């Protein structure tokens, strides 16, 4: 057991931290306020290789590990959870399934531009009637010989509209239920593929969340991702990895709020002394820090399992559950420590508290994480 980063991971963490402090942090409040998707920041990150961290160099990636990728999302999310999820959804939910399930042609055509960041990716599973029950897909894809004909819609799609490449799930055989779902690669601009409303959200307001509409979209046969009718497995495996990214986003939010609170209590004085002198403040911060560290270890361990190539879905579920609850708790406490100032937009903890909530909801709610964990417990007699 070795709890040390390699030199490479250390270096990557320093790089991303420096970039985040100099480039992302200064605009984080502004893009939240304006609900503006930071296209220019995505371009900058692409140039530096932030959009393909865990993929091999031959596919346009930076040739690093999943741990490196997760550390990057964590660092970015310390300042801006919206930017964190843009990177996470792109990397884990769009590029990874092509890397893992794609044919060589699909990798050449779609993974390379995604990993270099030339193109942005998104993932569409959720529908109005298919949320937690993702198998309840209404979108259907009919085999028309030369192509699949796609009809239906998706909601709540992160990076929607701004993304160029979409991983879309649809029923190819309704009779078979969740064994009749397939995954497809769609491109923005395909005739019949359009965008509906953009959600107005509580948090991560600089990330774009869109409705996708498919009206007789002709999807070429070669754009089937993975095997026919095996799409549900693709979705579940993809989400296992995605949860590591969301765990990292949540952890970053918690750390960002913690750092802000730690600095604030040393400055702010009441009753003639800094808040940090009150034992209540000290105990709160001790609790917050302990939660952050234990969530972090759980997350890093799950990621290391993925890097080792062994099953990690239970660990990923525990990591996401813990990190998102930590984000909620720590941001809540941070606002409390800031008092009235924390409730205003003068300080970042107000935004962070709003941003934290989504991490308990998307890529599987906390309830779903517990279902996954129970799924494991159901198969064992002791731990």
């Amino acid at each position, binding site marked *: 057991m070795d709890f040390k980063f390699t030199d490479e991971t250390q270096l990557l963490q320093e790089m991303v931290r420096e970039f985040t402090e100099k480039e992302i942090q200064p605009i984080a409040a502004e893009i939240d306020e304006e609900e503006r998707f930071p296209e220019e920041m995505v371009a900058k990150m692409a140039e530096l290789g932030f959009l393909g961290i865990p993929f091999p160099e031959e596919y346009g990636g*930076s040739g690093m590990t999943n741990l490196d990728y997760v550390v990057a999302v964590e660092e970015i999310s310390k300042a801006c959870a919206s930017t964190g999820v843009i990177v996470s959804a792109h990397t884990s939910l769009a590029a990874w399934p092509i890397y893992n399930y794609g044919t060589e042609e699909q990798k050449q055509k779609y993974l390379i531009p995604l990993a270099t960041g030339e193109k942005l990716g998104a993932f569409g599973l959720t529908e109005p009637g298919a949320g937690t029950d993702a198998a309840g897909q209404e979108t259907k894809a009919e085999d028309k010989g030369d192509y699949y004909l796609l009809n239906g819609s998706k909601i709540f799609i992160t990076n929607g509209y701004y993304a160029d490449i979409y991983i879309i799930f649809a029923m190819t055989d309704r009779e078979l239920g969740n064994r009749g779902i397939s995954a497809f690669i769609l491109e923005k601009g395909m005739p019949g593929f359009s965008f509906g409303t953009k959600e107005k959200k509580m948090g991560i307001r600089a990330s774009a969340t869109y409705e996708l509409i498919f009206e007789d979209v002709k999807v070429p046969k070669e754009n089937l991702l993975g095997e026919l009718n095996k799409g549900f497995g693709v979705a579940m495996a993809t989400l296992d990895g995605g949860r590591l990214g969301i765990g990292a986003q949540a952890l970053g939010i918690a750390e960002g709020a913690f750092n802000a609170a730690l600095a604030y209590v040393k400055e702010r004085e009441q009753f003639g002394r800094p808040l940090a002198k009150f034992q209540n403040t000290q105990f709160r911060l001790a609790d917050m820090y302990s939660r952050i560290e234990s969530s972090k270890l759980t997350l890093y361990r799950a990621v290391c399992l993925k890097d080792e190539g062994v099953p990690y879905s239970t660990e990923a579920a525990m990591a996401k559950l813990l990190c998102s609850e930590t984000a909620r708790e720590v941001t809540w406490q941070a606002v409390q420590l800031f008092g009235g100032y924390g409730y205003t937009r003068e300080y970042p903890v107000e935004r962070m508290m709003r941003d934290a909530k989504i991490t308990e909801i998307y890529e599987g709610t906390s309830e779903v994480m517990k279902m996954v964990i129970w799924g494991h417990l159901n198969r064992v007699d002791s731990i």
Partner: protein
Amino acid sequence: MNILVCVKQVPDTTEIKIDPVKKTLIRTGVPSILNTYDAYALEQALQLKDKDPDNVKIVVASMGPQQAESILRDCLAVGAESAYLITDRKFGGSDTYATSYILSQSVAKIVEQEGSFDMIFCGKQAIDGDTAQVGPQLGEHLGLHQITYAINISLNEEKNKALITRELDEGKVVVEAQLPVLVTFTKTDDLRFASIKNKMKSKRAEIKEINYDDLAGIDDTKIGLNGSPTRVVKSFTPDVKTDGIIIREDNPDEAFEKFAAELEKVKLY
């Protein structure tokens, strides 16, 4: 087009705090960085390379202890081609004069490997010593003409002359210089970040070393502590002075209005 950029590792002075009681610098835990002005000098070289990637080669050199290797790697990560660390115990304790002498001797050595330089870039000064002496002294040792406080450089069509914008207290001046030339840079454009790939590659890159023994014919009386004419007589914390303001208006009434407004701000009347 060969460009040599001379760089120095310095403590990050923005992170240094003064001990309020002892009035000394608190140096522990202060990270070492590439001197900011050297980074601007490198950025200008990189911009010349961006314009003509096949023909511009950038070499970086630093005199310092072994750990200064890390800033050379930073330079490689953003696009310098090769890096030299000039290091020897005998060089320790050198003041600006001895440093620039050792650098000038090393340049001859680097030229053997890399070919002669069309331009040598330096930062205008190091943010730790703030002397602004090493660049000009190096120019003198090498017999090059020198342009200081530059913020921008471009080359003519024939690539034998440089057009350099200098930033001075009274305004900007554009000068033309025949190559080869030594240029020192002040704050210019934003600095670039290294990509992940290049950063990782730079970690494994070779840093070439130049030691005392490599510099045949170096004059021992001009290096190290003994070769340094500078002596520190006294250190003290100067009183903090804020910058004055100069009000310039064609219309004296407007100038007076502004002057009065400034007085009002500081509540001087």
